């Protein structure tokens, strides 16, 4: 650096700031409808965020092929939040600075809560394909929030009812991964079991996510004489626990959530996954829109779509169609359209209730049979 290096650096720095600000600041005038897609697009939860982003991409393509909405093309703007609340507020303001009309996102419940504060004050609607925390819709704090996935308590209720009434087990161990999603679900499961009076929670524990060995917890489950395990969390931990239980020749029933109802679980747990129960969105493999969406993904990326792909397609379609139905991007009009007019999506015909939960998106119990998840009717 030269003699006046520091000043030069300062000037360059200022220039760079101005430049970026200019490029970021000058959104085109409102000749497109802008859909923001926020979620974890990097970091350890990237696989969930990226599959949702691809869902949004597909929905936008679909709409644009039909000529857009209100005579305008739809433009997709993505924002990475790494599933961290503090980054999520930045992402939210970033999307606002790009003048988005509606937002699909975020992916994780924590990040969603942080970002919703920003969207609420700016009068923007957000719809998440994956944030399941009950408080998001039930607390009434987030009138601008909608989702195309069932909440944790609905899922926990289904799991508990299935265990107590269908499988008729009495002693249940409830495990979770200490995470936002897993622990929330496990707490509801515990509550429901205790309230029902038909069963008993013999063990309630959190495991360390990413751990190399869960045999100590597995031994504890064995000692507790639990007939079934209800696990709240994601598939990596679930597959380790199931494998270690089966390797120890335990036949304990394993019931889990839609974080586990993922084909990756069957792949990683292999033969040990046989017989595992998991709840998840109703089987839509016969829905023509879902088939189309899945095929489009396979063609584009050469692989099966990830966890929240179809939910993301559904939420993007619901948002964009609501704008069409409302005839404007006005907040109140869109909300009204979302609540009153049904939309055809890969998840079926859906509309939303007062709190923002989707009506028509059901959950059912699946079981791994011969290496695939089959819906139990």
């Amino acid at each position, binding site marked *: 650096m030269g003699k006046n290096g520091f000043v030069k650096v*300062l000037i360059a720095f200022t220039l760079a700031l101005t430049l970026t*600000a200019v490029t970021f600041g000058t959104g085109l005038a409102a000749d497109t409808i802008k859909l923001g897609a926020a979620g974890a697009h*990097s970091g350890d939860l990237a696989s969930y965020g990226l599959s949702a982003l691809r869902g949004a991409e597909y929905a936008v393509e679909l709409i644009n092929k039909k000529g857009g909405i209100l005579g305008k093309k739809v433009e997709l703007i993505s924002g990475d939040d790494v599933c961290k609340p*503090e980054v999520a507020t930045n992402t939210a*303001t970033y999307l606002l*600075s790009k003048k988005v009309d509606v937002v699909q996102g975020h992916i994780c*419940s*924590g990040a969603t809560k942080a970002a919703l*504060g920003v969207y609420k004050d700016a009068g923007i609607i957000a719809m998440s394909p994956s944030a399941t925390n009950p408080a998001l819709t039930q607390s009434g704090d987030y009138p601008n929030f909608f989702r195309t996935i069932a909440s944790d308590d609905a899922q926990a209720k289904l799991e508990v009812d299935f265990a107590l009434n269908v499988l008729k087990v009495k002693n249940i161990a409830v495990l979770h991964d200490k995470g936002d999603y897993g622990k*929330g679900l496990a707490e509801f499961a515990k509550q429901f079991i205790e309230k029902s009076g038909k069963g008993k929670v013999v063990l309630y524990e959190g495991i360390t996510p990413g751990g190399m060995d869960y045999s100590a917890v597995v031994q504890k489950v064995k000692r507790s004489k639990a007939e079934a395990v209800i696990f709240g969390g994601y598939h990596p931990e679930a597959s380790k626990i199931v494998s270690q239980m089966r390797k120890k020749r335990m036949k304990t029933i394993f019931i889990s959530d839609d974080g586990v109802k993922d084909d990756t679980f069957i792949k990683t747990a292999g033969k040990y996954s046989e017989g595992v129960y998991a709840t998840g969105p109703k089987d839509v493999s016969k829905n023509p829109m879902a088939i189309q969406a899945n095929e489009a993904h396979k063609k584009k990326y050469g692989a099966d779509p990830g966890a929240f792909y179809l939910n993301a397609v559904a939420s993007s379609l619901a948002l964009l169609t609501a704008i069409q139905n409302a005839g404007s991007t006005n907040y109140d009009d869109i909300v009204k359209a979302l609540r009153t007019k049904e939309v055809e999506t890969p998840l079926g015909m859906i509309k939303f209730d007062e709190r923002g939960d989707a009506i028509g998106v059901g959950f059912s119990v699946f079981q791994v049979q011969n290496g695939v998840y089959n819906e139990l009717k």
Partner: protein
Amino acid sequence: MREIIKSFTVSIWFMFLTFPIMVIKVNTIEKTIEWRWERLIFVGIGSFFLSFLWRYLITRKESGIKKAEAGEEIKQPLSQRFFEDRRLFFPALGGVIILTVTFPLFFSSYQTNIMTNALMYVMLGLGLNIVVGLAGLLDLGYVAFYAVGAYCYALLNYHFGIGFWAVLPIAAAMGALFGILLGFPVLRLRGDYLAIVTLGFGEMIRLILENWNKFSFGPSGIANIPRPTFFGYQFSFDHSFIYIYYLMISLTILTIFVVNRLQNSRIGRAWIALREDEIACQAMGIDIRKTKLTAFALGATWAGMVGVVFAAKTTFVNPASFTFMESAIILSLIVLGGMGSIIGVILGAFIFILLPEYLRAIEEYRMLVFGAAMVVMMVFRPQGLISNIRRTYEFRSSKKQ
């Protein structure tokens, strides 16, 4: 010619090294293997040319060191010259002040928002700088105090409705208290033993927040934390970002002022003595226990305060924000900026926080570039962007005598 052969060897080596990860992709389900040979060629060509650049830069750096050792024209550090030369300093300072004050007027709220973020890390960096840069105690669990501050506001507000301004000093005091709490058991430890214990402390605080549902609401966190008010006046949404920005500016200036005064005070000199040589420091009659504890306490105070701003800005806290990686980032930014130097910390914070934001354009690759940049910057400027001012200051004053 020898250079070319060298580079050629390097490129062959890297092609070998990256072969399995870059070229082969197995699909264990469908039992197919994908060979991506074109990538090997990129790696080969890339490493061939990069190795030239690498060697050139290394030689340049080494010749620089040799020159310095031979006593040839020891250049004053850049920052030093800058501060000496008033013709440069004052206009630049004026420019910076005008820019910071008018920033929110010209830029979008997104820009203001990430600027606020950068300022928060400036404060965190300055706080950690007291512990690591001045007192020489390697602290890998600094994020714990940040968490203490954030939860302090979130919980006090949730249970008792206490406002932002009232919590700010409470959180600062809580930060200091936790600093002393951590300080006590580690008084006897040195260097890397200290590092692992502080790391453990940071993780423990996070785990407790995760598990103790009754106290902290567990991993689902606390939502709807109010944004700060201005003498009871609640700003509208857009303005509140600008308000927090100015608030952070004033807090940062306060921090810079206090840290600067501390550095030149009796206790500051004791810290530096402690860093340089613990035994000699003790021999000079400095109470090591007290000095270490004040370093931990005064370092943690700032993190407690930034924690409150964090909670107020995101309006939501959960334990996921306070991982070890956060501590590592704060430590990295002060080492990168130049340990012990206030300007260095500021520069480091701006680079570290703004770089990933502006790299959003290359979303997938941004952390890759970030990691590589960290290595390269350390290799070529191991003493940080701005090397310690203090040493040269002493050197000059001794010349005058």
